[in-house]
């Protein structure tokens, strides 16, 4: 018996270790169940005090235990517990664009940027490198240097230093994105998220339990660049809009060539056009229509006596007006569906001077359907040149929804010309609170600023009383209130959210700070909780059925030796899961497949050994020496075969993603534990049996009748 102590320990110790390693997993699941019971009770409690007392009592007696157990339990992959797996790419490109000196940006630079953007879309190469290559190709032959566009102070002495600085900035913006997103995810309250940088400029997020994709997208992707900008919806802009009208009209005429209209009508039109143009230039008052005036124009009467449309029918007048004003007729003032027939004589300028707008300013509105068209027009290089150089046009975040008399809904956005240079940016924000507007009961976010910001804010508001300041978040105008008085103390608020949830998200992103570079979701996998539960159930069922069948087969084929092999396999499975728990590995569905596969393959080592032992027994060796020989001779084959599988496991681990890595992990752990259990544990069992005085162990071989 004494001889066997070491052998017994060899069998028992791994068993104890694996049970020890798996205990926290068991404990955690028990405590989770208990917690659910408490929560159920809390829900049924009569008043909030009672229910919070119940929850507190759980936290008091089990809270710490649960935290500890959770920390050491085996982690389930997203495919089993449900959740979101997201790969983000940081858009470094934007950073390059913004580091450039604004006034220096010219067509050459824009061309370089465009090309860089296109290339970066399809390649994982360092964006700064792509930019450098394109700059060398396009800008350098035109005698342009990086120092013409970038000014990093003393650091920008040489071209190399500028590139180096850009790379540093890129690196920084990726790191910053990582931090900001981590903060946002933490504040959102996701338990056990994984956030890590992978590759050049990617961030991998694993968010267990999260299935609200929309909110998550908002939380992650919102750049949260908050800016306060002056509104410039003034007469200069209106004049520019008319220039655009003319430009587009002329362009259309040129592209059409000779108008295909009967000559007499064409002549007439030509005449009318010339009158029309001069008319507009000489009487800018024409654009200053008030709402009242609009009402009169709608009724068909014209305030102008010099009517260029005289002599045309209503329909023709309307048609011609649209032809003459291809740009401004995209706008909305009074309600008219975008596809409705414009039978009415619409001579109105389609923007107006609303009463709630400061004097001399206009309100512009546009249908959702035509916004893209509008945007593509104003983004054209030739047209941008017609607009005041220091403004940009942005639309409101939320549309106004209007119903026509048939009940059909239309979305109408406001758009604003804003001074390009922001007066103040979100960096001064120290805190944000999601709350409700006491008067309108709409969700709002109130923000407070640091002292520096508050000072600036007071100065800006003081200098712009009775003017509008737009609050812009990620290039969308949330509100553009008229400054009534100088605001001291650094408070401001954002309105225009559609739901309290949105306000809550906004609060989180404002607090966590803005992303220096926007991020793009390039891969997204969501597993709903029910599929996860299904998968666990099915995975466990397969594991049990497969194990049962293999174990049965082994006993049938090898009898007692088969039982020993089975003991080894069972300890093997326990060890695999135990080691996974110990090394904080994640169990995925492919991981379970790996374990099931290991059961099938683990017996291979024992099969190799047992077949050898049978051979040796047939040669007439004693049972003890046959066993020794069998183990020795089978060893090299076992090693070789397992090492090849291990190599594939390694390759899978390094090339695979997420769940596949889980498979590779269990496969590799499985191979190591197999070598240990199949060789050492089963041998120990044989030796214990022999030491107990048994002289014959059945290897299931048929009785040697002829021997």
């Amino acid at each position, binding site marked *: 018996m004494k001889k066997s102590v070491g052998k017994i320990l060899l069998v028992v110790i791994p068993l104890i270790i694996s049970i020890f390693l798996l205990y926290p997993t068991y404990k955690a699941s028990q405590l989770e169940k208990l917690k659910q019971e408490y929560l159920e009770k809390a829900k049924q409690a009569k008043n909030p005090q009672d229910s919070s007392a119940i929850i507190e009592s759980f936290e008091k007696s089990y809270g710490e235990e649960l935290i500890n157990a959770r920390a050491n339990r085996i982690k389930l992959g997203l495919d089993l517990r449900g959740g979101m797996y997201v*790969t983000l*790419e940081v858009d470094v490109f934007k950073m390059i664009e913004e580091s450039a000196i604004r006034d220096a940006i010219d067509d050459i630079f824009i061309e370089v940027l465009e090309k860089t953007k296109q290339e970066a*879309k*399809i390649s*994982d190469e360092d964006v700064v490198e792509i930019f450098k290559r394109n700059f060398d190709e396009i800008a350098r032959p035109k005698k342009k240097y990086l120092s013409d566009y970038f000014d990093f102070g003393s650091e920008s002495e040489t071209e190399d230093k500028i590139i180096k600085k850009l790379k540093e900035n890129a690196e920084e913006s990726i790191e910053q994105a990582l931090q900001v997103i981590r903060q946002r995810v933490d504040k959102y309250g996701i338990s056990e998220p994984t956030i890590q940088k992978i590759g050049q400029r990617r961030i991998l997020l694993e968010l267990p339990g999260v299935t609200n*994709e*929309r909110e998550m*997208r908002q939380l992650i992707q919102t750049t949260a660049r908050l800016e306060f900008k002056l509104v410039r919806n003034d007469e200069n802009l209106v004049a520019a809009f008319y220039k655009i009208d003319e430009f587009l009209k002329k362009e259309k005429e040129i592209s059409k060539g000779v108008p295909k209209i009967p000559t007499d009508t064409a002549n007439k039109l030509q005449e009318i056009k010339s009158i029309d143009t001069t008319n507009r230039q000489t009487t800018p008052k024409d654009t200053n229509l008030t709402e009242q005036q609009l009402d009169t124009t709608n009724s068909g009467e014209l305030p102008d006596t010099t009517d260029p449309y005289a002599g045309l029918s209503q329909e023709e007048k309307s048609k011609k007006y649209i032809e003459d004003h291809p740009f401004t007729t995209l706008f909305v003032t009074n309600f008219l569906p975008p596809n409705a027939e414009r039978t009415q004589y619409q001579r109105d300028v389609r923007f107006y001077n609303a009463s709630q707008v400061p004097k001399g300013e206009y309100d512009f509105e546009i249908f959702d359907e035509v916004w893209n068209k509008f945007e593509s027009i104003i983004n054209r290089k030739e047209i941008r040149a017609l607009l005041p150089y220091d403004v940009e046009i942005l639309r409101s975040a939320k549309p106004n929804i209007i119903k026509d008399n048939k009940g059909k809904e239309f979305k109408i956005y406001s758009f604003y010309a804003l001074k390009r240079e922001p007066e103040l940016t979100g960096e001064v924000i120290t805190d944000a609170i999601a709350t409700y507007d006491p008067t309108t009961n709409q969700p709002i976010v109130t923000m407070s600023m640091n002292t520096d910001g508050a000072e600036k804010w007071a100065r800006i508001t003081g200098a712009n009383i009775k003017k509008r300041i737009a609050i812009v978040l990620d290039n969308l105008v949330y509100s553009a209130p008229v400054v009534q008085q100088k605001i001291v103390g650094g408070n401001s608020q954002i309105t225009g959210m559609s739901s309290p949830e949105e306000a809550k998200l906004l609060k989180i992103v404002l607090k966590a700070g803005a992303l220096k570079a926007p991020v793009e*979701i*390039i*891969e*997204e*996998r*969501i*597993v*709903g909780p*029910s*599929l996860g539960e*299904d998968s666990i159930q*099915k*995975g466990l069922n*397969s594991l049990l*059925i*497969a194990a049962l*069948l*293999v174990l049965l*087969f*082994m006993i*049938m*084929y090898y009898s007692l030796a088969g039982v020993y092999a089975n003991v080894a396999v069972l300890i093997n499975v326990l060890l695999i899961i135990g080691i996974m728990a110990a090394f904080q590995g994640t169990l995925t*569905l*492919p991981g379970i497949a790996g374990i099931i*596969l290991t*059961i*099938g*393959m683990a*017996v*291979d080592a024992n*099969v*190799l050994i047992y*077949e050898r032992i*049978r*051979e040796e027994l047939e040669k007439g060796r004693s049972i003890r020496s046959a066993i020794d020989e069998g183990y020795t*001779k089978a060893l*090299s*084959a076992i090693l070789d*075969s397992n*090492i*090849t*599988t291990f*190599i*594939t*496991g390694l*390759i*899978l681990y390094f*090339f*695979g993603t997420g*769940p596949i890595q889980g498979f*590779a992990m269990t496969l590799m752990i499985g191979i190591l534990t197999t070598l240990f259990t199949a060789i050492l544990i089963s041998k120990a069992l044989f030796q214990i049996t022999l030491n107990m005085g048994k002289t014959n162990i059945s290897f299931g071989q*048929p009785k040697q009748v002829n021997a």
Partner: protein
Amino acid sequence: MQFFKKPNIDFIGKRKLFFIISSILIGFLILLVLIFGFRFGIDFTGGTEIAIRVEKDISTDQLRTTLTKSKILPDEIKSYGEKNQFLLRFKEVGEDAAKIETALLGILKEYSVQILKKDTIGPKIGKELRFQAFIAVLFSIIAMLIYIGLRFEFTFGLGAIIALIHDVVFTLGMIVLFDKLGIINLEINQGIIAALLTVVGYSVNDTVIIFDRIRENREKHKGIPFAKIANLSINETLSRTVITVLTVLIVLVVMVFFSGPVLQGFAFTMTVGIIVGTYSSIFVATSFVLWFMKKIKKLNVEEDAIKQVAPSKA
């Protein structure tokens, strides 16, 4: 129990027959792949896949009509695992995919629809994953060649690699065949690549066991012609080969039927790969080594004991 009692089957003598069988099968499957090509999953093409479960009974066709009416046009609709579970595929990614999902939930409200999973893969990632998968398979083959070359002789390494390529090509061909026949939904995705790599490991594993025996027998039975040694070794390991393939097959068949839709492609690929891997280790790998020694190295394998032994031994 014993399946084979001292088997003495002339595998090596019939190697020409098996060579022809293998060639015809592989040729046919390559042709199949060339004609139909692989169907890649969104892992590799980019796009969106949404798996849904509805509570009311609905057929795939009904679902298609319902969706088409509402101008939602999935590229593909197929059943997913169980009754009333469907997998919808769309080309769209990003915001557009999110919009489709919202619309889907609205349209199928009356069926109490539930999203089981949703995968959106950007085209860039798809391209990268495809490249990675290719590199992974290539790397694993090279790694095997190096390992066996070191443990045995180069000729053996080559034999194992030929068997391995035979297995990979055969498995890929069967994937296309079964997918085309509509028996099981098999598009090349990450799971199938993982299975393929595991097949690579297993195929070599099986072959190595036989090579190991050949190495041992060459030392034990000096003077016996190499061809005989090879045949003896295959016979001696036959019992082990069959038992192991059986146990692995047991678990794989269980997986095909019980593990749900996520692992089905994986389990199928493994099953085919394990069967062909076993076949090739018996009929292809050793035969190739013999052929190589005879034709390339001009050795008389039928009569001479080939003296060259493995450079190293564990």
